[in-house]
């Protein structure tokens, strides 16, 4: 078994502030993801990294940057926080090949509030 650790669990920022969310996984998975979860809107993909030196934009990448520091870690930066923004950011990972790559393993999320 393994675990995905997201830090911080709660993040409060000011409008216009640059904020960084961190994710660590010990599954030894190749692929990592960042999703945004808004109430009533499901999960939307922000960025993903197929392997350690890869970075791909998802459908919701505008306003965000991402960095894959090493195989086990993947960070997300909110480049300019928007006032009244409230969402949960979920990190996930999968192995690279085969049917096991279809199962996403999620962390417990970082809840962002922008004042």
């Amino acid at each position, binding site marked *: 078994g393994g675990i995905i650790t997201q830090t911080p669990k709660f993040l409060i920022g000011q409008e216009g502030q640059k904020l960084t969310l961190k994710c660590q996984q010990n599954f030894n998975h190749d692929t990592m993801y960042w999703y945004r979860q808004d109430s009533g809107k499901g*999960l939307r993909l922000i960025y993903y990294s197929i392997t350690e030196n890869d970075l791909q934009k998802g459908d919701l990448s505008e306003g965000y940057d991402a960095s894959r520091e090493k195989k086990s870690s993947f960070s997300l930066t909110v480049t300019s926080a928007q006032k009244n923004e409230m969402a949960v950011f*979920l990190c996930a990972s999968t192995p690279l090949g085969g049917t096991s*790559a279809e*199962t996403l393993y999620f962390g417990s999320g970082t809840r962002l509030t922008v004042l």
Partner: protein
Amino acid sequence: QQQVRQSPQSLTVWEGETAILNCSYEDSTFNYFPWYQQFPGEGPALLISIRSVSDKKEDGRFTIFFNKREKKLSLHITDSQPGDSATYFCAASASSGSWQLIFGSGTQLTVMP
């Protein structure tokens, strides 16, 4: 454009009843449909999945019924328990690689004791 739709948005059933959660999709190339379960304060976790070559998948009290012609599927939870209270997400993809997954907006299930 919402490619994966779920209904109802919220559902309340009594303990022991069967909960039925619905999902529909638009893209006929979708061939893999996982359902994820999310408890408050936690990330989603894979509950059960089905491929388009099957019309039914069962795992204990959880069963997916799949209708390819109508592009619909449903998750049936029989003998519902209070511990099943969670949000359930239907998702779909057309190819391998979980970055292709499209998630629905979720159904919040409450099971009353």
